[in-house]
C-alpha cells in the first residue's frame, strides 16, 4: 500500500485477526470438546478445556469408540500412514522416471504416452468409481494396502511438475556430463535427482496430505474394519442409532485425523507453498 494510513493498518490487522478466528475457531472448538466427558458436551457448549484430555485420547487410540465398532484409532492412523506414505513414494517414483523418459529421450510413441498420462488429469476417481472398483476387486486387491494406494498413484500432476522442471535444466549440464562419460542412468542419479530435491520435498508435502485425506476410495474398497483409515473412520463414528452420541470422542478423532497433515504443513511450510504454486503453473 502506498499511502501511510495508520487506520488502514489497524483495520488490516483486525481483518486478518478475524480471518484467523474464522479459520481456527472450528479446530479450537473441536479440541476443547475432545477434552471433556461425553455428558459435558451433549447438551451444553464448552468454551474451555476439560480434564479428560489424556483419558479420551488414550481411550480412542487404544480401543476406539465402542458404540460404533470399537476399532482403535491408533490402528486407523497406522493404516492412514501406510496409505499416505505409499502414495507419496509410489507417485513420486513413477512420475519422475516417466518425466525423465519423456523429456530426455526420443522414442516412438513418446507423444502418445504423454497424452495418455495427460488424460489422467481429466479422470478423477469420482468419475470412474464403479469400474475402478471392479478392476480392483477382480485383481483381488480389496481390503489391502496395495488396493488403497496403487490406483491413486498414476495421475499426472507430479509428472508434469517434473517435466516442467527438467525442461529448465540447462542442456549444457547434460552435455558436460556426456563429455565426462556419464550415461543416461548415471546422469539421472548423479545430477538430475539431486537437482530435483526441492521439487521432491514439495511434492512429499502435498502428496502426503492428499494421501492421508483420501476419503471416497478407502470407503469403497475396505469392508474389513481393521483396514479403516482415520479419515473414513470419522464418518462411521457419527451414526449411533441408540447410544449416546459421544461427541467428545468423535472430536478427539477429528483432531487426530487433522494432526499429521497440519504438522507436515507447518514444519515444511516453505516447501509446501512452493510446491503448490509450482504444480499448478
Amino acid at each position, binding site marked *: 500500500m502506498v499511502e501511510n494510513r495508520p487506520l488502514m493498518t489497524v483495520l488490516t490487522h483486525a481483518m486478518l485477526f478475524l480471518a484467523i478466528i474464522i479459520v481456527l475457531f472450528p479446530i479450537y*472448538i473441536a479440541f476443547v470438546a475432545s477434552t471433556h466427558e461425553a455428558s459435558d458436551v451433549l447438551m451444553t457448549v464448552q468454551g474451555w478445556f476439560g480434564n479428560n484430555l489424556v483419558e479420551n485420547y488414550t481411550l480412542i487410540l487404544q480401543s476406539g469408540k465402542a458404540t460404533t465398532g470399537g476399532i482403535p484409532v491408533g490402528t486407523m492412523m497406522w493404516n492412514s500412514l501406510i496409505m499416505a506414505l505409499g502414495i507419496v513414494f509410489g507417485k513420486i517414483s513413477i512420475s519422475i522416471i516417466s518425466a525423465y523418459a519423456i523429456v530426455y529421450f526420443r522414442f516412438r510413441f513418446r507423444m502418445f504416452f504423454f497424452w495418455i498420462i495427460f488424460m489422467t488429469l481429466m479422470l478423477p476417481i469420482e468419475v470412474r468409481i464403479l469400474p475402478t472398483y471392479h478392476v480392483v476387486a477382480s485383481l483381488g486387491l480389496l481390503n489391502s494396502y496395495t488396493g488403497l494406494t496403487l490406483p491413486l498413484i498414476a495421475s499426472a500432476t507430479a509428472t508434469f511438475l517434473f517435466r516442467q522442471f527438467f525442461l529448465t535444466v540447462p542442456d549444457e549440464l547434460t552435455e558436460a556430463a556426456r563429455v565426462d562419460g556419464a550415461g543416461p542412468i548415471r546422469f539421472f542419479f548423479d545430477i538430475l535427482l539431486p537437482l530435483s530435491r526441492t521439487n521432491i520435498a514439495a511434492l512429499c508435502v502435498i502428496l502426503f496430505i492428499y494421501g492421508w485425506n483420501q476419503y471416497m476410495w478407502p470407503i469403497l474398497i475396505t469392508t474389513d474394519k481393521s483396514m479403516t483409515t482415520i479419515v473414513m473412520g470419522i464418518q462411521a463414528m457419527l451414526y449411533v442409532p441408540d447410544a449416546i452420541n459421544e461427541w467428545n470422542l468423535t472430536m478427539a478423532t477429528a483432531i487426530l*485425523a487433522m494432526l499429521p497433515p497440519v504438522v507436515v504443513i507447518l514444519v515444511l511450510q516453505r516447501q509446501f507453498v512452493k510446491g503448490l504454486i509450482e504444480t499448478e503453473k
Partner: protein
Amino acid sequence: MEKRVVFKNRWLPYLLVTPQIVITLVFFIWPAGQALKQSVFIEDPFGLSSEFVWFDNFIELFSDPLYIGSLKTTFIFSASTSFLALSTGLLFAVMADRVIKGAAFYKSALLWPYAVAPAVAGVLWLFMLSPANGILALTLKSLGYDWNHVLKGGQAMVLVVIAASWKQIAYNFLFFLAGLQMIPKSLIEAAAIDGARPAKRFWTIIFPLLSPTTFFLLVVNVVYSFFETFGIIHAVTQGGPYKATDILVYKVYRDGFIGLDLGGSAAQSVVLMAIVVTLTVIQFRYLERKVQY
C-alpha cells in the same frame, strides 16, 4: 518445449514410462472405457445379460426429476462454495499482502484448513451446528433463529457450503497472495501518482492483473466443489434432508454403489467426465493465452 540434448537409448525410455502407463491404463483408462460402455447398456437384475440401448440411459437420466434436481443442487452448491471461498480467500490475501509485520505468522495460521480432509471439515462444522449442542446452533437459537439442518434442507445446504468453502479458503488465499506479490509495486505507485485511491486501484489495476490467477482458481474451485466435496456430503448429510444436498458426485455413488444401478450410474459418470474434460480443456486453453481481462 523440447530439449536439444537427448539420450539415444533404445529400450530405456520404454522401461521408464512403463510403470505409469500400466497403472494409468489399468486403473484409469480401462475403467473410464468401461463406464462409457456401461452407460449405453442396460443390465438385467441378475447381471446375466446386457442390452445395447444407445442413449436411453442418458435420456432417462435427463428426464428423471431427481437427476435434474441433483443438477440444480450441484449448481447452487458449487456456485455458492466457489464464490464464498474465492472472495474470502481474495480478501484475506489482500489483507496479508498489505501487512509487513507478522505476514509470516498470518500466512502460517491461515494455511491449516488445507491439511484438513473435507470429510473432517464437514464433521467439525457439523459439530458446531449440531442442533442440540453445537456452539453456533445454540448461539443462533439464542438470537431467535431456529437452527435444525437435519430437518431443513436450506440450512443443510448452508452447512455444507460453509464447511466446503472453509476448507478451500486456504488454497485460494495462497494463490491469490502469490499472484498479488507478482504485481510490480511500480505499477501501483504509478497509479497512486495518477490519482487513484486504494479502492479504485484495486478494481482497475490489481484485479484485472490478477485475472489469470482468478480464472485458474475459479476452475479449480469448481472442480473441487464438484468432486472433492463427496466426503462432506457423505459424512454430514448423506444428500439429505430429502435430497436437499444431493450433489452429482454423491448421487453417482449412491445409485451405483448402494443402488446397484450400473447403467444409470455409468451414465452419470459419463456426464461428470464430460464436465471435467470441458473444465480442464478450458483451463488449458485459457492458460495458453493469459488474457488480461
